[in-house]
């Protein structure tokens, strides 16, 4: 077994030091080394998007990133999305719009939606559907998710005004 590597990274705006094996994905590192189990494992091969996190402003599937690659990077996970006393508008919209049932895909959808609204505050329905094509949900049929993202976009652009 290869030796563990020391990695220093910024996760949800906190500097984090950890040890991981080179073969451990960022997903495994978050869940098994750091105990941050909000990020979910679905397919573990880049197809389902459940493990979506944002690295240096870009969303990626954390199952296809190595933990050692987190070195020097700024990582955002679902744990950093809400404030202590209130949910993020996207989370609130998913809740109000019933955009989740079993919940396994939800952290990935929230992160992907957040990444979208960061670059495009008012995306069209088509754009939302295309952007979220890498996130699979087997419960909702997607309509409620898309409408919740639209609702969050409206709310967030209202807040900015």
């Amino acid at each position, binding site marked *: *077994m*290869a030796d563990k590597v020391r990695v220093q990274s910024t996760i949800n705006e906190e500097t984090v030091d950890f040890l991981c094996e*080179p073969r*451990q994905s960022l997903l495994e590192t978050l869940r098994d080394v750091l105990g941050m189990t909000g990020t979910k494992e679905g397919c573990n091969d880049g197809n389902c998007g459940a493990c979506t996190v944002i690295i240096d402003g870009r969303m*990626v599937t954390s199952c*296809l990133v190595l933990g*050692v690659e987190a070195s020097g990077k700024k990582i955002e996970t679902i744990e950093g999305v809400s404030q202590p006393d209130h949910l993020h508008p996207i989370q609130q919209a998913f809740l109000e719009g019933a955009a989740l049932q079993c919940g396994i895909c939800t952290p990935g959808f929230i992160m992907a939606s957040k990444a979208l609204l960061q670059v495009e505050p008012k995306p069209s329905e088509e754009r939302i559907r295309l952007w979220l094509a890498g996130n699979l949900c087997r419960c909702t049929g997607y309509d409620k998710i898309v409408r919740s993202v639209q609702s969050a976009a409206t709310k967030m652009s209202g807040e900015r005004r």
Partner: protein
Amino acid sequence: MQAFEYVSAKSVGEAVGVLSQHGEGARLMAGGTDVLVQLRAGRRPQVKVLVDVKGIGELNELSYNDRQGLIIGAAVPCYRIYEDPTVIKRYPGIVDSASIIGSVQIQGRASLGGNICNATPSADGIPPLIALGAVCIIAGPNNSRRELPLEQLFAGPGRTTLQNGEMLISVRVPPPPANSGAQYLRFTPRNEMDIAVAGVGAAITLNAAKNTFVSGRVVLAAVAPIPLLVPAAGQALAGKPVNDETIGKAAEAAVAAAVPITDMRGTIEYRKHLVGVLTRRALQGAIQRAKGV
């Protein structure tokens, strides 16, 4: 995933050194969206050292000048390519493919260099590059460099002609000639996040009056053991008037050249039919772009 040593190479020389030392035991990684899947699935049991090349400056280059054209470093992720204003303006055929590889998540990591070196016949990134005349810049032991037309890099499914100790540094795409255009189209059952049943990249140059083909290149995906350049399709275009008859003849040549297999994604007959349809449409799209429509 199997255990391996991770090396974040800081120079081409360092990466080539590891490759030379370990041979089959070393594998390069840029975005990792293919190699990590393969390692996890046990499909590369020989790999003992994974060499991350994202820290090498030259492999992150994305630049254009009118003399040598576009340089795409082998580790440049898809999103940088399709968001680049120069690529959007001068090479929309490359944007076509870079923006449909995997999901937005995958495009945040995956590089065209990786798409090339992974060498699957269905790779979307390769046909438009070959159609546009891309040349590989390859580094090897003892600071050696060589250039190779991209269509000559492929040896079979998942296999390239790169020798032990060699690595892809970048691809260079010549400056687009006046009155030229290119397009890549693929057919997939789902619009996104899917693997091509068939794909066609076409690049054409028209005369100044834009009514005659000066030259053309047609490249097929997922219908041969390698990304397939069809010289006969180019010959059917060169010097001929821009009309449905000429386009139809080029499409017939593409269909004749395709040697697909039947698998879960489609039958031989279906794939050959798709090659005809996609070749006509990609040529028409390339013509529209050449005309600036």
